[in-house]
């Protein structure tokens, strides 16, 4: 009996691997740029936008979104042995679950997306309203929703191109 899991491994062809490499690069530079902008806003303009974890989390989601969109737009997101419909259904489920949890918590008053952060500067206490760690679910939901929208848009563009090529062949 074969107990290895190599059959479950995602399989990408050579063009897809090339595109995914480029997409990782774009995602990496997006995160770098986000962290630099965050640093400049915090240090140069002397203001705060995010709590420590929320800032890093939004940066990570942003870079994943860039990676996913580049891959989706070049047909390198879904592997050869994956079912696109299954992936879309899973992603829509995850997106709705996260957004649902987020708004349910907000509606029940359990959480707030903004929190007050106190920072001591030169012996004085400053209050900042920053995006709190509770935005994690919402950000995650939006990320999956964005990926689903990108897949849907790409499918529409592909279908139009196929129709155009069919007309051309006729």
């Amino acid at each position, binding site marked *: 009996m074969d107990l290895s899991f190599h059959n479950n491994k995602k399989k990408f*062809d*050579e*063009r*897809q691997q090339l595109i995914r490499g480029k997409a990782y690069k774009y995602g990496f530079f997006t995160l770098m740029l986000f962290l630099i902008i965050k640093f400049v806003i915090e240090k140069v303009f002397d203001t705060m936008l995010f709590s420590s974890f929320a800032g890093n989390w939004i940066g990570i989601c942003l870079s994943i979104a860039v990676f996913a969109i580049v891959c989706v737009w070049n*047909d390198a997101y879904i592997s*050869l042995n994956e079912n696109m419909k299954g992936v879309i259904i899973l992603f829509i489920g995850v997106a709705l679950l996260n957004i649902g949890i987020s708004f349910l918590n907000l509606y029940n008053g359990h959480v707030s997306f903004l929190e007050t952060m106190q920072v001591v500067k030169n012996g004085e206490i400053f209050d900042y309203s920053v995006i709190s760690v509770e935005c994690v679910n919402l950000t995650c939901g939006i990320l999956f929703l964005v990926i689903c929208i990108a897949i849907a848009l790409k499918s529409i563009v592909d279908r139009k191109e196929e129709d155009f090529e069919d007309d051309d062949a006729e």
Partner: protein
Amino acid sequence: MKNLKMKAARAGKDMSQQELAEAVGVSRQTINSIEKGDYNPTIKLCRDICRVLGTTLDELFWEEENGRTDDE
């Protein structure tokens, strides 16, 4: 630079892009990109395509004197 030779060879074998893609183990979009000239395949993939279509590398991928790979 479109690769019309490959498109013609595929049509000659009465294969769709999807069928050729499955035969060589790549995605349909990769075959489409090669035919449109958007992607330069590795020699390994070129060989696999030639084997499936029953042609040679020269016939499908050799550039003409003027640097074209199409049948224009």
